[in-house]
């Protein structure tokens, strides 16, 4: 039996890319043949996937096609034709950000998102079974006309976060830390739905009211360059000087160095299908303060501070409470680690395999 995976882009340091590689490992370990087919493959992963147009398997071979749906792709129509030709097609839905967030900043991306939504609906009649990263994603799929969606979180190897951080970066950050206050961190692509502007706003109030020496680090490549420019202008407008840094292109070890000096992870995102950085924070013992939107409450559970109001003062005060050393802080860190253990690779791999076997048995 063969179970092949299809995704628009296979990229390193990408949650969906890593999940696809882990899924292949789980499938192969369970005795299935499995390959990855992609539309775009980033060079470091060139050997891990093949161009999907080179896939010439005939409908005679017993196999299942597993499509990772998160963006628009010409692959969707190709898969539709395969399904119409009698091949078994299932999917894993990683969520599509609403176009509203990009309409004013990047109209081309907004248009691509609308295409992706149309493709999602187009494939619905051909997909009898789907995985979804969260209950939030599953509900969205069913609303879109899909028959069934089983929740299976992203496969994340949390052990990778316990590798040694980049020593030079760590030394530099520790030296800087001696002369600064509370260190905030948010990790995620610079995109309007992630609402980095709210994080900067809350941080500005925190500095003014609670800790004038605090620092904020935002890590993530720019999905929206125009939004990034607006964030940079905002930092100047709010007179935050060099207390805010926006970094991109960090390697895994450098990012670990940033995690090592972080006091609090603040996520005010309005749209997340799962939110892997929340999981990273919990695993690394960093308290989380997050806005209760979309799938974030599901991922965080009771292991962090969830806010219904993300007004800057409300967030600043929540952070002030979360970073104070004491029994409450200890409980927050301990609950985070316990919560992260639920999403361990062993657990999520079992969930994935159970879902696949349930589908094949039916």
């Amino acid at each position: 039996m063969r179970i092949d995976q299809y995704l628009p882009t296979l990229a390193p340091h990408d949650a969906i890319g890593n999940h696809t590689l882990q899924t292949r490992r789980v499938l192969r370990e369970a005795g299935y043949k499995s390959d990855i087919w992609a539309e775009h493959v980033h060079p470091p992963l060139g050997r891990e996937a093949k161009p999907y147009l080179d896939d010439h398997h005939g409908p005679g071979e017993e196999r299942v096609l597993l499509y990772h749906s998160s963006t628009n792709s010409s692959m969707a129509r190709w898969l539709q034709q395969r399904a119409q030709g009698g091949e078994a097609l299932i999917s894993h839905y990683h969520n599509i950000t609403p176009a509203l967030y990009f309409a004013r900043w990047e109209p081309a991306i907004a248009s691509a998102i609308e295409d992706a939504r149309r493709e999602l609906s187009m494939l619905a009649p051909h997909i009898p079974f789907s995985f979804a990263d969260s209950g939030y994603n599953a509900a969205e799929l069913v609303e879109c006309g899909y028959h069934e969606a089983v929740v299976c979180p992203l496969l994340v190897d949390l052990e990778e976060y316990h590798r040694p951080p980049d020593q030079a970066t760590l030394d530099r950050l520790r030296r800087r830390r001696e002369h600064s206050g509370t260190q905030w961190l948010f990790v995620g692509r610079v995109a309007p739905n992630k609402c980095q502007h709210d994080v900067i706003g809350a941080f500005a109030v925190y500095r003014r009211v609670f800790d004038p020496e605090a620092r904020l680090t935002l890590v993530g490549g720019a999905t929206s360059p125009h939004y990034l420019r607006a964030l940079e202008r905002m930092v100047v407008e709010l007179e935050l000087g060099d207390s805010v840094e926006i970094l991109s292109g960090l390697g895994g070890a450098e990012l670990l160095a940033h995690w090592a000096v972080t006091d609090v992870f603040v996520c005010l995102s309005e749209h997340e299908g799962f939110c892997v950085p929340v999981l990273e924070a919990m695993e690394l013992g960093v308290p989380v303060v997050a806005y209760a939107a979309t799938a974030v409450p599901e991922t965080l559970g009771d292991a962090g501070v969830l806010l219904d109001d993300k007004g800057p003062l409300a967030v600043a005060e929540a952070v002030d409470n979360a970073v104070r050393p004491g029994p409450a802080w200890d409980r927050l860190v301990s609950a985070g680690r316990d919560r992260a253990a639920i999403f361990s690779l062993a657990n999520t791999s079992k969930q994935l395999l159970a879902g696949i076997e349930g589908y094949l048995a039916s």
Partner: protein
Amino acid sequence: MPNSNGGRAPAVNAPDLSPEAFLYIEKVRQTTKRLSARERAPDDLSGAVQAVRDVATFDVEVPVASRRRELELVKTGVKRLSVWYMRYLAEQLNAFGKSVSDLGDSLAKRTDELASVSDGLAVRLGAVEERLKRLEHVPAVLKAVPARTKPAPVRAARNPSKTSPRKAEQ
């Protein structure tokens, strides 16, 4: 107070803040609100102008970071070779973008003024229509009044000292 034990945080009690801090917080609120996602109505001219302003800045500082050192060097080289040309273009495009958004601002302001004048005229027109209706009802009212209640015809005053102001002026 937010719940540091985990879970949903209840409403916040604001700490004692100085008037300057309140002003700063309000500034932050306005700034974050400006960048928030929002549905724009088709006739929202100010929103459309803001959308133009959001994308009317052309940046020549192309990112050159790369995980591969050699690629970063190539990108840096290309950037240095072409930056004078890109900057020349970007300056013109930025000036054009600013002019377009300024024009949009002027149009939005003028449209708001016209809308305000139009609203005022509508109110005045309504009042005039109301008055006209009342006047149209007057003959019917007068018909309904019995003849004996008609006011007596006005006669000229017999007392010469009680002259009208106009006559007095003469």
